[in-house]
């Protein structure tokens, strides 16, 4: 773990009253290595270490704290701050029909998340309706219909070759007819560089304005996380991030990179394949996880 790694690097600090450029050099290198191993973006890691160095220099070696622990504490606090300090929640209007669109790369966990979100909102007393707007993937509609059945919420799907925006429009109508108050739109996985499919998301939003657009990102995403998040933010726009598959052992540095570069908060995390496996994002837990 990072503290132990830093202890080796900071042996020079034994008996030193202050943290100096020279005696924390090794420690800063270890921190950068740890961040890169955790999939934090190259530039984000560099900037973070520079800020830690600034904060650390000149600090008195605190009583009762090993110098290594002291530096780790600075890093941990900085990570927590970057990850959003407080937990952020979904901003759904209290009255009328709320609309949520779920988007992201192929296989990130969108369809499963739609089911999890429906269950969560249902527990909170809302009446969600799921919309199967993935018109490409084989059996995508079957998948969402099965999930809707498991949660016990209505689903709108279309097998007559309508476009995604048309399906969402019809889904909204069904929601109204069924007295539902949240529309959850599952979309097909797509590349952040596919202009046609990015436009499809915008066309959906134009057809039925979305209160909340959520980017679903796999926690094991590597260096490309920044590029992915930037493109979706620039071409489509989203209000928050859902980080999935956190029940694995991926350190999740992508979370830091995405938050740092796009400023979008991570709102929820997926922690398993069952429809109950959804949790609120905790910046402090994520910080510890990234640091390993």
């Amino acid at each position, binding site marked *: 773990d990072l503290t132990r790694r830093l202890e080796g690097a900071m042996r020079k600090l034994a008996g030193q009253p202050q943290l100096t450029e020279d005696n924390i050099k090794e420690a800063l290198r270890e921190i950068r*290595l740890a961040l890169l191993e955790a999939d934090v973006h190259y530039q984000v890691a560099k900037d973070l270490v520079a800020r830690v160095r600034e904060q650390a220099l000149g600090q008195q070696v605190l009583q009762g704290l090993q110098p290594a622990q002291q530096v780790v504490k600075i890093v941990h606090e900085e990570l927590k701050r970057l990850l959003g300090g407080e937990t952020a929640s979904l901003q759904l209007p209290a009255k009328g029909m709320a609309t949520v669109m779920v988007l992201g790369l192929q*296989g990130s966990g969108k369809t499963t998340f739609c089911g999890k979100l429906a269950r969560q909102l249902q527990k909170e007393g809302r009446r969600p309706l799921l919309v199967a707007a993935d018109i490409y993937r084989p059996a995508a509609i079957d998948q969402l219909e099965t999930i809707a059945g498991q949660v016990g919420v209505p689903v709108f799907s279309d097998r007559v070759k309508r476009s995604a925006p048309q399906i969402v429009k019809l889904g909204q109508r069904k929601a109204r007819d069924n007295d539902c108050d949240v529309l959850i739109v599952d979309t097909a996985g797509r590349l952040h560089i596919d202009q046609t499919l990015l436009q499809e998301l915008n066309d959906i939003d134009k057809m039925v304005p979305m209160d909340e657009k959520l980017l679903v990102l796999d926690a094991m995403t590597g260096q490309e996380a920044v590029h992915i998040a930037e493109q979706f933010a620039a071409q489509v726009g989203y209000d928050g991030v859902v980080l999935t598959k956190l029940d694995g052992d991926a350190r999740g540095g992508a979370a830091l990179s995405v938050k740092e570069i796009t400023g979008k908060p991570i709102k929820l995390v997926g922690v398993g394949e069952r429809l109950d496996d959804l949790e609120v994002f905790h910046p402090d837990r994520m910080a510890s996880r990234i640091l390993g």
Partner: protein
Amino acid sequence: QRLLGGGVKLDEDTLDAIEELLIGADMGVQSAVRITRTIESRLRETGGEADLPSVLRVIRGDVRQILSEAKPKVKPLTWDDALEPGADRKKGRKIRTPVAAEPPARESAADVRVVFVVGVNGTGKTTSIAKLGYLLQQRGHRVLLAAGDTFRAAAVEQIQVWAERIGALCVAQAPGADPAAVAYDAINAAVARGCDTVIVDTAGRLHTKTNLMAELAKVVRVIRKLTGHDPQTLLVVDANTGQNGLAQARVFAETIPVEGLILTKLDGTAKGGIVVAIAETLGLPVLYVGMGETVADLAEFDPGTFADALFA
């Protein structure tokens, strides 16, 4: 401050650029450090200039070599040595390459080639199976797909649609069925229906879930018992995966004998550099690459092409 090897005559900016390219391609710190530590001597060997293009040329050569020479060096920890992948090769039966020259006569389960596709959730297993089935059929094989994901919503329906699209037979059971039973069924069906290849789909699973990894080992044992040899196991890795890809590969390869990787989603912007660490550390070769969502989007892996694209 520099991460990478000292004593290199390259200037700071060039070193910075190299570091950023290697890390940015998801090659990981270990690979990046190791590669750059030998850069200066390699440059001398090849008579290259101490500039970025020359360095990248050397690195590409290194990467190509690592990837083309990859030979599995990790075995399942509890594997029965009598039936390890090498065993059949000694008897003159080549079961290493996923593409056979001529489909052998299918008189028994022993003659059916079984491809077993595994990996963590959402990496592209089911889609890759459709692509591989399509590729093999184009080469004259008769392929049968086994709907071995009996867990996830509509997983069976998904592979059934693909089987229909590529004109392959598909064997499935009720949802919640034992995946080993599906594989068993499928291999026997292949014998009965004259198919020479069975490709078995499995449910996605995180390598940290010990019970799910044990389930995989059980399915492989059942296949082995029926056919008398190991299936050819392909581990599917998403090119967007960061350093966790190495942990995935290690645990899967320590659970069942893994033949090689399918690296998917290379049509995105990720470079998939994690396969270099996987090749170096575990000796697992990449056998196929997925570059899109249609059946035609699968190619046999070419180390040179991959190395060239790494820093493009």
